[in-house]
């Protein structure tokens, strides 16, 4: 078996689930004949036809709402947002209708909403967003954001089989930049379980998505240059969040750097910090620090985007500060 990219892993997951369960179908803008803006669904319509691969009008609210209705009736919709930035256009129906369906009306609503997310690609303020913080706050939703090709496949397959609505964010910077050999067989990554991306003793980095790779770079640099042993936790799932894995790494290193690409205020790092505080305060030898984007809309020009988004050198600075604390 040969290596495939993060993007190909998502596609493979889609094909396998469409093949496994005839109730699975895809809907979104330009996903059919064209195969999607990033070609993630390339070939899907050719194989499964227009009934199971639906090109929709430019109507994110209709896409999410129609998916919910179909899900009530036993189908398993997979919605594509052409860019995840446009999920905001379905914010109301997703947080109010979909997220509450089971609780307020005992209506099952198994569906997946996926789409290209994240920056570092000169996409500007409306093609680079990280939407996780906007939904972390909504009981009834689940959120995953894979950093590796095998997790991209395994989490998508788990999301499609989940009984509730899973927001599946795929990082477009990783689409074609990372490759990996897929585990054999029916590969499922459990939702709600973090991954230890790198073992370490001195400092922990808790992160997810594209910044996992920057964290690993930084970890290697400080090991080389400072002899520091850094553990890197890839959360993979944000809702539910793997609190046990977070507490375990805190107890191990007693120093935590939380890193995310998203803007700082109101970002996911706050929730992680609060949980560490509640569950492992006595184990902290230093404050939990955050390395994040600056609190501005993401600008497009390379010098500006590079300034706003967290970079490897920032993580290195954070690790050194914690180690010296």
């Amino acid at each position, binding site marked *: 078996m040969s290596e495939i990219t993060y993007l190909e892993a998502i596609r493979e997951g889609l094909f396998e689930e469409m093949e496994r369960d005839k109730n699975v*179908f895809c809907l979104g803008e330009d996903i059919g004949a064209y195969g999607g803006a990033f070609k993630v669904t390339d070939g899907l319509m050719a194989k499964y036809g227009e*009934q199971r691969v639906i090109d929709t009008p430019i109507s994110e609210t209709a896409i999410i*709402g*129609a998916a919910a*209705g179909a899900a009530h009736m036993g189908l398993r919709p997979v919605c594509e947002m052409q860019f995840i930035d446009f999920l905001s256009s379905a914010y*109301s*129906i997703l947080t109010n209708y979909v997220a509450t369906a089971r609780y*307020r009306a005992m209506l099952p609503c198994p569906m997946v909403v996926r789409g290209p997310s994240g920056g570092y690609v000169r996409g500007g303020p409306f093609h680079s967003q990280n939407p996780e913080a906007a939904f972390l706050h909504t009981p*009834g939703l689940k959120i995953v954001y894979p950093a590796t090709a095998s997790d991209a496949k395994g989490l998508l397959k788990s999301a499609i089989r989940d009984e509730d609505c899973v927001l599946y964010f795929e990082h477009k910077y990783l689409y074609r930049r990372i490759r990996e050999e897929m585990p054999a067989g029916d590969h499922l990554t459990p939702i709600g379980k973090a991954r230890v991306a790198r073992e370490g003793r001195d400092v922990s980095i808790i992160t997810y998505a594209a910044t996992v790779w920057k964290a690993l770079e930084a970890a290697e640099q400080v090991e080389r240059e400072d002899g520091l042993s850094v553990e890197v936790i890839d959360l993979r799932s944000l809702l539910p969040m793997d609190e046990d894995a977070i507490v375990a790494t805190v107890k191990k290193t007693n120093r935590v750097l939380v890193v995310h690409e998203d803007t700082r205020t109101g970002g996911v790092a706050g929730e992680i910090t609060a949980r560490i505080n509640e569950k492992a305060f006595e184990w902290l030898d230093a404050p939990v620090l955050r390395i994040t984007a600056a609190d501005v809309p993401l600008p497009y020009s390379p010098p500006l985007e590079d300034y706003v988004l967290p970079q490897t050198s920032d993580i290195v600075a954070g690790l050194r500060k914690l180690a010296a604390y």
Partner: protein
Amino acid sequence: MARSSTAASKPANVREESPRTNDRGPLSREQKLELYYFMRLTRSLEERLVNLYRQTKVVGGLFRSLGQEADAVGSAYALDRSKGDVLSPLIRNLGSMLVQGAKPNEIIKQYMAKGDSPTRGRELNIHYGDLVRGFIGQISHLGDMVPVMAGVTLSFKMRRQDRVGLVYVGDGATSTGAFHEGINFAAVQRCPLVVVVENNGYAYSTPLSKQTAVTQLVDKAIGYGIAGEQADGNDVIATYEATKRAVDRARAGGGVTLVELITYRRKGHAEHDNQSYVPAGEIDRWALENDPIDRYVRRLLDDGVTQPEIAALDTRVQKEIDLATDEADASPMPDPTDALVGVYADPPVVPPLWFREGINSAVEVNERPSSWGTHDV
């Protein structure tokens, strides 16, 4: 009654209590009486709810459909429950829900926020549904049910089922983006969907002229490239027939129809609304000249139905409502910790927060503030 050929792919046990068949013929005498029964049940049940509201037994606001019983009942009656048709009601569609099999005791329990109400006290008033009986609970956000029903009916089409869906929107809700996206999506996909626009003249206090520049909402059908029907929503038979044409069209693969039903909201948006914004005399005129039940009774009598037959139905309705009230009254409020159950399939229960471990209630009494503070204005 003959099951549809696609019975297999229908929800398990679609119950059949209604004398309706899916024949194309005119309504039978029995069916005509059933229409009366549902309209009367709607009105009397709401009147009972008003009493309970005055006794402060209702938690939250009370929403009436006085004067709109015909549009709700007549339109829902055009569906075929034996085929597993599904509808999505709004706040004025108590009558539609009753036609689909909703029960008075469920309604009263919902309004009283009881633990054994269909939503176990989680949602208000008639915000509930039942897939088996074929109705889906609305949420407050107007317009959202249109995309949802587009998806429900998309599933009928994908599975080649012989089923139809019907969704209600008010004149006001036609202004929402969700309505637009949903009806357009269904139109393109030629989903077997009927969109009933209940034009009752007002959205809360806002008259139609401030909601849209069209004078009749059926014109919106043209903008979506779909069929349009219009009927007198206070004429239950006309309403039934117009909706039936739309339902038949949908079932025959003709896609979406927008049905405008012209009616009038005689009560306020909710009980607390004093309707100060309504021109003097308007309400009385509709009450005197155009009450859907009065009109229908006259018609039934002309058709040879007798006063005793009608009186018998009235008595039946009263009995059912009395029984339902007693049952609802006697039923318990929810157990506080049930609040933690069923947000997700997995985990099935959210663990209590640390400061609530072992605590069943953090307050002595569950006082009932005057709903949203809108009662006492």
